[in-house]
């Protein structure tokens, strides 16, 4: 009786000492920030790259998102990292998508949409949000730079097995409530360390009812619950998404793969070390109020009073959070004025996310004084959105339509908040200074971010009539 995680683990053990195992890695994704020291280490030791064809590199964190970026990057340090990635990929024959390529984008958006991400794989990247790829029934997790070097040199990783955790939600989501709200509700319930030492499998109808985009949003946020990885069993939705993508096998090979992938499910009767259940029947859209992703509440709630937390450490953390966020206990969350809106990131920068936000914005104008950035997760998402005319909807509403990249998800590229600015963001972290020193982040879904843009305040999106059908993105 095995869980999905047990099966994925067992299928990749090259060697094991009991406590530690050498795991084979099927796909190694690489970006410019966490790889230069790894390639340098390889060179210094005179080691070769074991499997370049299992490696895929794309720059995303540093890239500017303005259309003049084809002329080069002004920031010298950022430019150096991009040049280092290009040179390393050339020297070691790693497949590489440059910034100026139409396929460029955030590595966790690019992998799935090229079909490089497949069920049953082990996938690593020097990036914690590698958990995204678990949506396909792959064991996918973030690693540090020393481990990047280890995988480059050996295509393997020394790892310790995590415990099994199940997060179950059995009811479908109510209208206006999306995968992001579900993810925030899970983290609020489990806590940012709730998944520590565990791999989470998401189970039940609420998760199975999500599109691949929605499943990626949920698995992406697993790391925010402290988990090593997030997983969902692959099903017909997964296989339909994968068919005919560039890297995916074709014809009989595909059919054979699907037949095997159908076995990637937790056996009935297998047990989990930890279980969390989320009630979704009356779930409301969620927003965060503090500086940890677990500080999430329904939009109908109020800024909590630190004294109401039983744990003294949490009380102190909440007090510091509120001081940083400039918020007073008791203030209704709905109505908090914002300066900026960021729609994008590997959490919510996919086509369905842009559709969900555009459905709210269509025919409307964003509030005076609010700046909104719309940053597609990849060139392919951008092209698809433009085909559907979504760029025109965003522009007409008064938002900026940008080139793909991590953008305002983290303060590494020119898109940052100014000190004190408050942002409605669809990304995944509201840490102190994450979007720039002194910046204040409220996490939410794309539809909620669009609603905030329209009113200039945190707003319950269910108040708006939508032109399009709701999608669970």
């Amino acid at each position, binding site marked *: 009786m095995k869980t999905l995680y047990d099966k994925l683990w067992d299928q990749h053990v*090259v*060697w094991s000492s009991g*406590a530690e195992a*050498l795991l*084979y890695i099927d796909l190694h994704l690489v970006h410019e920030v*966490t790889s*230069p*020291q790894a390639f*340098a280490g390889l060179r210094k*030791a005179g*080691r070769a790259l*074991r499997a370049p*064809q299992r490696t895929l590199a794309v720059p995303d*964190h*540093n890239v500017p998102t303005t259309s003049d970026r084809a002329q080069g990057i002004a920031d010298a340090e950022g430019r*150096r990292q991009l040049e280092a990635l290009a040179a390393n990929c050339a020297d070691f024959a790693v*497949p590489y998508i440059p910034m100026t390529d139409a*396929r460029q984008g955030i590595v966790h958006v690019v992998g799935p949409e090229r079909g*490089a991400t497949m069920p*049953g794989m082990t996938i690593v990247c*020097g*990036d*914690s949000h590698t958990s995204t790829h678990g949506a396909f029934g792959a064991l996918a*997790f*973030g*690693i*540090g*730079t*020393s*481990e990047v070097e*280890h995988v480059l*040199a*050996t295509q393997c990783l*020394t790892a*310790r097995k*995590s415990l099994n955790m199940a997060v179950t939600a059995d009811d479908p989501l109510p209208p206006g409530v999306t995968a992001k709200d579900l993810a925030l509700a899970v983290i609020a319930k489990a806590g*940012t*360390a709730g998944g*520590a*030492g565990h791999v989470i499998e998401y189970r039940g109808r609420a998760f199975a009812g999500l599109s691949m985009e929605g499943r990626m949003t949920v698995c992406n946020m697993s790391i925010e619950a*402290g988990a*090593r990885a997030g997983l969902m069993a692959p099903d017909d939705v997964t296989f339909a998404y994968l068919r005919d993508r*560039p*890297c995916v*096998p*074709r014809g009989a*090979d595909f059919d054979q*793969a699907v037949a*095997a992938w159908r076995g990637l499910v937790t056996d009935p009767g297998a047990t989990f070390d930890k279980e969390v259940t989320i009630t979704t029947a009356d779930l409301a859209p969620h927003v965060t109020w503090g500086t940890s992703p677990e500080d999430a509440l329904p939009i109908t709630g109020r800024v909590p009073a630190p004294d109401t937390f039983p744990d003294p*450490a949490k009380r*102190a*953390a909440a007090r510091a959070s509120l001081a940083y966020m400039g918020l007073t206990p008791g203030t209704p969350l709905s109505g908090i004025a914002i300066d900026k809106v960021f729609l994008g990131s590997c959490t919510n920068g996919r086509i369905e996310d842009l559709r969900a936000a555009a459905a709210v914005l269509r025919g409307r104008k964003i509030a005076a004084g609010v700046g909104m950035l719309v940053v597609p997760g990849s060139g392919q998402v951008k092209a698809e959105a433009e085909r559907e005319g979504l760029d025109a909807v965003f522009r007409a509403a008064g938002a900026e339509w940008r080139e793909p990249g991590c953008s305002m998800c983290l*303060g*590494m590229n020119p898109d940052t908040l100014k000190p004190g600015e408050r942002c409605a963001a669809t990304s995944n*972290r509201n*840490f*102190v*200074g*994450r979007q720039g*020193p002194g910046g204040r982040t409220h996490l939410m879904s794309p539809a909620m971010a669009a609603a905030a843009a329209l009113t200039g305040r945190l707003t319950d999106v269910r108040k708006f009539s939508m032109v399009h059908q709701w999608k669970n993105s």
Partner: protein
Amino acid sequence: MEKFLTLTAVAVPLPVLNVDTDIIIPARALKTTTRDGLGAMAFHALRFDGEGGLRDDCVFNQARYQAAGILIAGANFGCGSSREHAPWALADMGIRCVIAPSFADIFASNCAKNGILCVTLPPVAADALARMADGARFTVDLVQQIVITPAGGTVAFHVEPARREALMAGQDEIGATLARVAEIEIFERRRAQAQPWHVSARLDVV
């Protein structure tokens, strides 16, 4: 990697919950292509005020903690990003051991790769050590798995045997794995037969 056997050093207390990797080293400091020099930007948001002045109330700016080699922190230390820049920044500051009630998984693994020892203690014990800090020297002994307090008391801890051995040996993990290359090749061949789509998957054509 530098071996870790015992360390005697001043401990700096930071008993705060959920200290994330963006606090340890902000994203804007990650634009480096080397492992060195990150200490200057470590804990930047804590050490500096809005105008770039040093905050006196921050432990990292206080004279008695300047030579610290140990950090005593709150639960879930190192949560967030996988950036190894976080342990590199700690190492650059001179920190070679972090004591906390719990650690984020990737952070703890990154520390081990850089010869930094993560000691997990119950919250009450970690808290008690933090209160004893005050510029005094502690000894962390990985061989015996004990912390010796400035007053000479001992607190036992446990590090997983494989990780403890690697830290004590200063092991080259890549070298150890490369010694198993024959097993890796057998694994690859076996899988190519059992799951041929791994061969026809065209990761290099994207």
